[in-house]
């Protein structure tokens, strides 16, 4: 199935621009305070470097994706590396399920137990995932533009509540804090690297990844600035979900009482699609590691495992949040160090034909 550049861009926006709104603002603001925007830009530039490394490596293999190229070139070492990625992808999927379940329990369904919410989220993600890449492309083409349009709307409506003085002093920058903020944000932005890993070199165009990263980062930055200028720095660094508290401030005369629910209605399918894509990538990688397994058949079991792990890996919502201090260490290894390794190791072989993967 042909995948266009626009579809890849929108998929990238959907992938990095959904769950990241929930956790990164508090951490980035705690570290960099009013200059957290610069943290997102620095982190985005590092992700751009990783994306460039992976895209350049992918250009060497026109008929397959990077995971297939790795398994084909280095059957044993490549598969060991893929198993490490597999475990990390399982962790990411479990983390995302838990984040959404905790968020839904906190703000929407207080009396529904978190495991039940996790089960519902996972079941939906499994059924989306079983639709294949076509389902994700369709969802991203519908919901990503709607979400971007709703961001414009949020900016318009909140213009009168903005206080630029909350960002004072503008030019007194704590570079250590800004770097620490970039440290926290990097794992979430770098997830876009999953796209060149699973999309074949035939369809993946580097520019789509760059534009997707740029748009996703721009959306995060806009919402962050709005949160800081409406709620203020002291509140943003103490709230678990400042992005949600921001949209709770939207009031359009007496028209609709819970306007945040409408905006959540636009955002929630994106978050579910993100989890579904996590599962898709997980099953896809599993199929490359064990070629005799059917990736589509393993979707439901992978979903069940991700759900069970979402309950097991994290003691509670606060411990999940605190793990963000340590996660960047693992993410930098997998999203920066290993792409550098790919760039160095996966070089063209001259006249020797490439061995088939799997």
């Amino acid at each position, binding site marked *: 199935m042909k995948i266009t550049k626009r579809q890849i861009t929108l998929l990238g926006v959907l992938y990095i621009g959904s769950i990241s709104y929930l956790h990164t603002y508090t951490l980035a603001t705690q570290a960099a305070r009013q200059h957290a925007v610069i943290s997102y830009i620095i982190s985005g530039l590092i992700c751009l470097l990783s994306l460039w490394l992976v895209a350049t490596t992918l250009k060497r293999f026109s008929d397959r994706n990077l995971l297939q190229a790795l398994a084909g070139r280095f059957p044993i070492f490549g598969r060991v590396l893929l198993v490490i990625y597999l475990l990390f992808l399982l962790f990411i999927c479990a983390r995302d399920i838990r984040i959404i379940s905790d968020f839904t329990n906190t703000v929407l369904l207080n009396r529904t137990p978190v495991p039940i919410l996790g089960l519902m989220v996972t079941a939906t993600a499994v059924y989306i995932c079983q639709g294949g890449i076509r389902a994700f492309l369709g969802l991203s083409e519908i919901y990503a533009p709607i979400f971007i349009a709703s961001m414009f709307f949020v900016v318009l409506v909140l213009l009168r509540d903005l206080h630029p003085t909350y960002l004072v002093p503008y030019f007194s920058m704590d570079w250590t804090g800004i770097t620490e903020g970039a440290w926290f944000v990097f794992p979430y932005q770098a997830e876009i690297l999953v796209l060149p890993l699973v999309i074949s070199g035939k369809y993946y165009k580097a520019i789509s990844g760059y534009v997707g990263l740029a748009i996703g980062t721009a959306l995060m930055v806009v919402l962050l600035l709005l949160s800081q200028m409406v709620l203020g720095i002291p509140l943003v660094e103490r709230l678990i979900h400042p992005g949600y508290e921001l949209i709770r401030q939207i009031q359009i005369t007496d028209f609709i009482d819970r306007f945040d629910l409408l905006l959540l209605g636009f955002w929630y399918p994106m978050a579910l699609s993100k989890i579904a894509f996590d599962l898709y990538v997980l099953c896809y990688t599993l199929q490359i590691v064990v070629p005799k397994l059917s990736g589509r058949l393993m979707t*439901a079991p992978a979903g069940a495992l991700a759900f069970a792990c979402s309950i097991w890996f994290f003691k509670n919502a606060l411990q999940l949040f605190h793990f963000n201090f340590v996660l960047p260490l693992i993410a930098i290894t997998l999203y920066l160090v290993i792409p550098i390794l790919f760039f160095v190791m996966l070089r063209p072989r001259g006249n020797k034909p490439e061995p088939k993967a799997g």
Partner: protein
Amino acid sequence: MISSYIGLLLLIVFSCWRDWGSLREGGVLSRWAFGSVMVVSFGILIYVTWSPQVFYPTEWLGRVLQPLLPFDHHH
């Protein structure tokens, strides 16, 4: 917690019913993998909810990797 067990069991049964054709055609390895992963998932859920002392991997990993962090978290 009973509702979580019942919910997961129902979803497992539904998945088996939905993918029955694919399971039959998929080969022995796929069937074993499907069944094992479902059983392991259910086992993890029971372990987390019934065990008096639960080992949380991210808690342990956080303690192990804490000395390697470049930033001191005083927030």
